[in-house]
């Protein structure tokens, strides 16, 4: 392959990953890493480094929109960020210790979990409990729901559980080059009592800072290769923009089925790669 061929192919795959990801509400990293490693021969460490940089671009781009539409709970996001950022540092450090084969296996597990989380029926929310921490930090919020045309107020519960899960999401992000929203959003929605739109927006808001933390570690370590990271960052962002303008969050069952199939095949191949 020539450099121009690699760049165009990496751009095309990343564009597709960003498009598909935004249509089903997942970041592009979960497809970009398998594609770069399995299809294009990039080492998993370099693929993760390129992916985490693209995660900053997509999440910051989307966050700008959500924040200006006032859907994001910025106070909550900034509190939970302490945990995601700490997790990201842990994950980026672990990545240097875990051998490539181990990264393939952990990635296969997270792909499987993501596929499963898209197939399972929506969970039931857990009953609210008083949360003095949320009261003290005034984390409760409200947002204007455009589709309903009303202001939706809500109270936040179980901030400590949210911090714990955010830490885990941060570790996954730093270790694997993904956003980590797939871990945070269900807990924020079902256990913390936050409406799903505010969950998505707030999770997205945190992902930029989380990814920047581990990206900085990867960058200083020399793992972010300009040749690989450039087409991936531009491709994923443009793909995500196209996806957002196409559907705006509509749930399409055919696209979800395609996405789950892509995840399942990637999980299997990454698993086999890890066993080699």
């Amino acid at each position: 392959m020539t450099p121009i061929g690699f760049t165009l192919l990496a751009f095309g795959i990343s564009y597709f990953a960003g498009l598909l990801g935004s249509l089903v509400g997942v970041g592009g990293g979960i497809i970009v890493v398998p594609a770069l490693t399995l299809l294009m021969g990039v080492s998993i460490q370099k693929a993760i480094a390129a992916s985490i940089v693209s995660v900053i671009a997509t999440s910051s781009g989307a966050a700008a929109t959500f924040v200006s539409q006032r859907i994001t709970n910025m106070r909550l996001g900034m509190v939970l960020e302490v945990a995601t950022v700490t997790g990201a540092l842990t994950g980026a450090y672990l990545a240097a210790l875990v051998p490539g084969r181990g990264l393939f296996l952990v990635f296969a597990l997270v792909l499987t979990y993501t596929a499963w989380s898209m197939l399972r029926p929506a969970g039931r929310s857990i009953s609210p409990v008083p949360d003095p921490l949320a009261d003290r930090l005034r984390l409760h919020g409200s947002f204007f729901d455009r589709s309903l045309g009303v202001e939706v107020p809500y109270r936040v519960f179980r901030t400590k559980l949210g911090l714990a899960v955010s830490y885990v999401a941060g570790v996954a992000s730093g270790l694997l080059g993904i956003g980590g929203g797939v871990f945070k959003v269900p807990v924020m929605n079902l256990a913390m009592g936050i409406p799903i739109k505010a969950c998505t927006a707030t999770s997205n808001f945190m992902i930029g800072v989380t990814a920047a933390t581990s990206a900085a570690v990867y960058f200083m370590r020399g793992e972010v290769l300009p040749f690989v990271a450039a087409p991936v960052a531009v491709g994923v962002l443009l793909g995500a923009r196209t996806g957002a303008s196409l559907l705006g969050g509509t749930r399409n069952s055919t696209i979800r089925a395609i996405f789950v199939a892509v995840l399942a095949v990637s999980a299997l191949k990454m698993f086999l790669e890890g066993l080699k």
Partner: protein
Amino acid sequence: MTPPDNRALAGTEKAVSRVLRVGVTTSLVLVTAGTLLSFLRSGGYSDQPGEVARLIGNGGTFPRTAGWLFGGLLHLNGAAVIVAGLILLIATPVIRVAVSIVTFSRERDRPFVVVTAIVLGLLLLSLVLGKSG
């Protein structure tokens, strides 16, 4: 919620949104321009066999010094322009956090100045740790 809260938040929201938008757009323009320069100018990517393997491998060409970066930018070296874009992209959320510290402290929201300062501290720590790791 009390009115001063909402006013503070509105100001922060506007600033945060602007930082994110400008940061991402500028960095991706730089990354795209750098890629084009790498293809169009001599000294960038070559068509020799094994070039891709070198570029995605541990070719040792990775820029680690500020001197290389500034020198490269002056000579419109494609890789240096891409790296400048990537650095700006990584810095964008950091600037966002720094801006919110300023707005929270202007509104005398002590707990949130502390929370955002911790996040900023961890971000800066990641740069130092990355260097040593």
